[in-house]
């Protein structure tokens, strides 16, 4: 079902947990909410679920204004950050509770519970109680309870945060598959960018209760709309360098260290939107910096700091003035590099951000 959040505001005392949130989610879309701790992700989910009253704004599900409706009339399913499993019920009864509430017969319930539990690899735990499960197992029970009934909207609050890497991949694949199959609109909160990238049709990046950027994983990765997103997305994130641009002569002067770049002829369009001598931030992803032995017009000097072999790719950290820059090389062998290197910036992939942090475009 479609879901619309319109100008949503929610404050706890002086803390603006959600501040002017606007989002329109298409039917069957998978949205990831991504942002640092305390940025208002959980609060946003609770607002959609109807567990928080709004200070301002509207929530519309399937074309119906539900702002004033209690949670039980919204037909949603939610995985809570603390799982909220019932200690007095067996795992079967926990997972089957949404069905029991809806009057589904015991036999029906048990077969549906068994199916979901099998998919999440907790089929052998059904007789136990929550206190007899590990954190990761409890988390999967919570996910199972949410998806056992096909609600109009799924809300997941960091549902896989406690799983090990392998289980997480499997659970992630199951969720994605299930969501595709039944086509249920989902909002998925996560700290894990890779998870957001892998699952979401669109990612919403939040900070301090506000939306920083909304877009497909690729858009967000390729064109961060501001320095916050640029420095948040990517592992490691974008390199950001303070500089001024002499637009007339196509010269970039860096604040960090006396370094000047003369732009190549064919990449003048990248500085089109920069005002002369404006203080700007240059952003470039680690994979678009290459290491050269000799200086050239588009290089800046760097001092080798550390080389990390991540298996399949190499991460070189180099010092430029006071700042550390990351450079990603796609090769398996750890390269032999001299102390003094020259960092060549690929100006087809450089962004400039104004003093307010917004992308100049």
């Amino acid at each position, binding site marked *: 079902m479609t879901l619309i959040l319109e100008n949503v505001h929610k404050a706890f005392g002086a803390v603006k947990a959600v501040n002017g949130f606007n989002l329109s989610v298409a039917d069957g879309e998978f949205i990831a909410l991504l942002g640092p701790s305390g940025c208002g992700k959980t609060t946003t989910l609770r607002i959609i*679920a*109807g*567990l928080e009253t709004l200070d301002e704004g509207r929530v519309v599900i399937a074309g119906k204004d539900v702002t004033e409706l*209690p*949670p*039980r009339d*919204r*037909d*949603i*399913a*939610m995985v*809570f950050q*603390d799982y*909220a499993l*019932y*200690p*007095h*019920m*067996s795992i079967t*009864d926990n997972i089957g*509770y*949404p069905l*029991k*509430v*809806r009057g589904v017969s*015991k036999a029906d319930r048990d077969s549906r519970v068994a199916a979901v539990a099998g998919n999440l690899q907790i089929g052998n735990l059904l007789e136990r*109680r929550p206190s007899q499960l590990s954190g990761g197992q409890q988390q999967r029970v919570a996910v199972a309870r949410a998806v056992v*009934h096909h609600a109009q909207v799924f809300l997941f609050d960091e549902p896989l945060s406690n799983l090990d890497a392998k289980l997480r991949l499997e659970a992630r694949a199951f969720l994605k598959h299930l969501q595709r199959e039944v086509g249920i609109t989902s909002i998925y909160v996560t700290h894990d960018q890779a998870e957001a990238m892998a699952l979401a049709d669109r990612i919403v990046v939040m900070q301090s209760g506000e939306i920083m950027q909304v877009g497909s994983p690729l858009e967000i990765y390729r064109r961060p709309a501001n320095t916050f997103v640029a420095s948040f997305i990517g592992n490691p994130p974008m390199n950001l360098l303070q500089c001024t641009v002499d637009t007339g002569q196509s010269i970039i002067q860096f604040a960090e260290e006396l370094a000047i770049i003369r732009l190549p002829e064919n990449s003048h369009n990248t500085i089109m939107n920069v005002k002369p001598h404006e203080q700007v931030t240059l952003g470039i992803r680690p994979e678009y910096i290459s290491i050269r032995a000799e200086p050239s017009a588009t290089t800046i000097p760097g001092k080798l700091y550390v080389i990390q072999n991540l298996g399949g790719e190499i991460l070189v950290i180099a010092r430029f003035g006071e700042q550390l820059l990351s450079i990603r090389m796609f090769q398996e062998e750890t390269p032999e590099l001299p102390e003094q290197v020259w960092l060549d910036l690929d100006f087809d992939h450089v962004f400039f951000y104004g003093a307010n942090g917004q992308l100049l475009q």
Partner: protein
Amino acid sequence: MQRSILSRRISVLFASPAFIFIALFLIYPFVSIIFISMTNRTLVGATAQNPDFVGLDNYIRLFEPSRWMNRGEMGFSLYITVQFVIGSALIGQAGLGLLIATLFQRRKGFIRELVFSLAVAVWIAPDVVVAFAWFAFLDPFDGTLNAILGALGLGQPDWLLKYPLLSIIFFNTWRGTAFSMLLFSSALSSIPPSYMETADVVGASTLQKLRDILLPLLRPYIATDLILITLWTFNTFTPFLLTGGGPAYRTELLSIYTYRTGLQFFEIGKGSAIAVIVMLINLVLASVYLISLRSRPLEQPSD
């Protein structure tokens, strides 16, 4: 096995004063009262000094079937007590306490503070003060209650004469609800809010939430509360200050019956026999309590 904090010798040392006290003030009187209950000892007169051993005579007199349910006899008193316990402890204190605790769950503010403070104040006030307050409240002519009823154009009965048992049931409910209220209130606040929120989101009705989540989670607390207040209510003597057990024995609880027999009619032997029976009843209740706490089955009744 978990290791205890203190070594055995030290624990015995620390516990010994308590053991001596218990022996002196609980076990000795208990044994001696069993002994006295088998004599015809009185408070004054010849049998005060040299009581005769009468065996189970006192008990046989108490359970004499022809008089057992007559007013002022053991059976009648037990019947009154059971009504009193069910009315004022189980329904009154526990029910009202649970209701108030649920109503004010996770709420703050003036009304909650007021209700809680008043309930606790009433609970800790001295018996005599409380009894006087209720005299003033229930007085047929100048009482607050009848003044209110009169203003509403309703009847103004003499409560302690016409509805004595009901009066002391209300009195004891009012007097003791604070305990259940506090116990349930802290039990409720130990339940994570997301339990109820999950039920809300899942679509459970109020009744389903109560039946499937709240009551099962509160069960151990409810058991503790019920048994404690049952024991206390069973043994309370305060209603005596209001009604003196009357009129016509209609509010004569077992505690008052024991007192009347032993210390008003000076039949210490018979009074002791009643006390022994009351103690046995208490013992049964306390065992139920201990057993219910030990085996705390978390089984959810499934359908």
